[in-house]
């Protein structure tokens, strides 16, 4: 099956090779081919499918039938989905507020030259190596009020109904997501700090700036683009974050952690309401794109001006 297809396509490809060279410089456009083919097949085509499906009614079996704007009206007025939208905002803001400051401080620390820094950096990095499912299962087991750490150590405050109490579950989710992703963002900040020329700090030192002043006047402004990159990853990431929450709480208790991606999945693959799930998927794509575009624009990162003029 594979062999004949290869020769066919190669033959068709040949004329292109002989075509007059429009741009002599730069790599051949063909080199973008594989990436484009994969992107087209696995991202663009399904995306169009989802948009079409959002106007259809389909239960996963049988033939999809046209439903017009019905799904859209149904989804946008559904209290469960509205709640999911709100929870997504809470999760996005919450994980950012938790992760951004901690990652910045850790990153700055990891970039320094303190004793044991390397050992500690390796330890901080560990959570990134674990799969989301394993992290979720481990936390479920550790926080189990009957058999977990709280019961084992006799620590009352730890033996709470973390996963089963609607008031606690969302905070737990934010904490565990932060725990898993702070290493990645610390790494970004560490490399960002390492790029700042030492001469800037020396100059500040001569001007009599203390450590705190150095941090706020040099380190933070110099890390602007690192912050934009890291925040974009955090915000767009938490908009679409799914696996850890799915294994940790499954959207429960009740609907307390049913954020949009989970709402989409549960609607599509538990309720088999593919039309409504597609509407949520389209919403996620649009919001995700808009947010990352907006972040890029607002921060001026798309211009990527140098911040080290005169150094």
């Amino acid at each position, binding site marked *: *099956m*594979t062999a004949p*297809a*290869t020769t*066919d*396509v*190669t033959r068709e*490809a*040949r004329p*292109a*090779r002989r075509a007059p060279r429009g741009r002599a410089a730069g790599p*051949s456009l*063909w*080199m973008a*081919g*594989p990436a484009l*083919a*994969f992107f087209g*097949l*696995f991202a663009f085509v399904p995306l169009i499918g989802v948009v079409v499906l959002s106007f259809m009614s389909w*239960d*996963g*079996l*049988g033939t999809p039938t046209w439903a017009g704007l019905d799904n859209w009206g149904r989804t946008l007025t559904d209290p*469960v989905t509205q709640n999911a939208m709100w929870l997504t905002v809470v999760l996005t803001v919450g994980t950012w507020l938790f992760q951004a400051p901690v990652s910045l401080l850790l990153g700055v620390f990891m970039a320094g030259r303190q004793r044991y820094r390397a050992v500690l950096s390796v330890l901080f990095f560990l959570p990134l190596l674990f799969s989301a499912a394993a992290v979720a299962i481990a936390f*479920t*087991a550790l*926080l*189990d*009020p*009957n*058999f977990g750490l709280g019961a084992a150590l006799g620590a009352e405050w730890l033996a*709470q*109904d*973390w*996963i*089963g*109490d*609607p008031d606690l579950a969302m905070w737990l989710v934010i904490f565990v997501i932060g725990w898993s992703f702070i290493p990645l963002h610390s790494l970004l900040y560490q490399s960002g700090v390492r790029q700042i020329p030492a001469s800037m700090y020396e100059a500040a030192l001569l001007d009599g700036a203390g450590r705190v002043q150095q941090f706020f006047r040099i380190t933070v402004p110099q890390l602007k683009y690192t912050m934009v990159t890291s925040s974009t990853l955090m915000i767009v990431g938490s908009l679409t974050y799914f696996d850890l929450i799915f294994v940790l*709480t*499954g959207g*429960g*208790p*009740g*609907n307390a952690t049913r954020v949009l991606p989970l709402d989409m999945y*549960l609607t599509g*693959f*538990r*309720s*088999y*309401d593919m039309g409504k799930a597609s509407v949520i998927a389209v919403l996620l794509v649009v919001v995700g794109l808009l947010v990352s575009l907006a972040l890029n624009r607002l921060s001026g990162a798309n211009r990527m001006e140098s911040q080290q003029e005169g150094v």
Partner: protein
Amino acid sequence: MKLRTARRTGAIATAVAVAATLAACGGGNQPGGASSDGASAWALTGGSEDMFRASFEDWNAENPEREIAVDWFANDAYKEKIRTAVGSGNAPTLVYSWAGGTLADYAENGNVVDISDGTQDLLDRVIPSVAANGQIDGTTYAVPNTQSQPVVLYYNQEVLDAAGVEVPTTYDELLDAAAALQEADVIPVALAGQSVWPELMWIQYLTDRIGGPEVFQAVLDGEEGAWSDPAIVEATTRIQELVDAGAFGDAFGSVNADQNADIALVQTGKAAFVLQGSWVYPNFLESSPELVESGGLGYTTFPAVDGGAGDPTNIVGNPSNFWSVSASASPEAQETAKEYISTQVLSDEAVDELLAIGTVPPLTGLEDRIAEQENPEYLEFVYGMVRDAPHFQLSWDQALPADQAQALLDNLSQVFLGQIDPQQFSETMDATL
């Protein structure tokens, strides 16, 4: 020249990539990796996995030309995968199911074939009320393939003795027992609230005891306002009464049934009762044999409700699991699958395997074989329960169409959390009919 080679390499790489992608999209019509026309099956891990493995190995050893390729899945993963596979014509030849709403969908869309021919011998041995689950309008689309799974009230006798509590036979006695057990500092009833589906067993039994099986039948028939039936409102009211009385402890939302945390609570004496399907008994046998052998593990039927219209010998649960034959399989594969069903499913060896792990297949006339087993009392209890039940209600989440089932689980968990009251539950559920 160098440039040219690079370009050719690029073109070939593209071509290979495209071909590979196309192959990835087009292939996979016969999952399981068997020869293209061969039969395949998807089966579930855990529970009676060993029985299924033995039966497929037997078949493949006896029929080397017509081997069945089997893939194994965890319960939840399977449920999510199979529907997409069936809907897209990529189903395995043998489709495992719980019958109910899903099977009705399959049959309506022509995804599974009529297997009335050739399965009569098997069906003649099956308890009729169980066999009926695989039949739609007199046509057999599915046959039972494993043990019967009624929901049983298990308890730790040592915990009851320590607290001086008798096994409750009515709902009011259960409430009293809950109070006494809390005094003794144990969780009265272990409930895996995180998994949500164990909560279904409570509303199913309470509704049946209060109003009889007709109440849920009205829901299945889609009668307007069926969820507002007084029996359902009373059942959800009683559920909240139990929750408020602390019958499920104060952290049931963190208990997960997939990790058997509810069973573990009873095994370790931290909880007294657990209402679960009979599929958990092999777990008790395996992880706390001392408790089972010393008679410390008790089992009984769900308590009656005073003044209730339902027969207290009615049961809920899963009558069995079922095999169907996929309509998208080749005719040869369908033949293989049917022959496998008539020769291997619930064969003598399979029955022995099931009885040995403490489960009971839904067949008639098993009394003698059960008496030969090591711990016949429990098996006799479960067998009697299934054989003599006037009504065996299939789990509601399996009986209902998928969208209604999911809404039910969502709203029921909110009833247990006290986030909505019984009236809100009935109103929201009525809107799904």
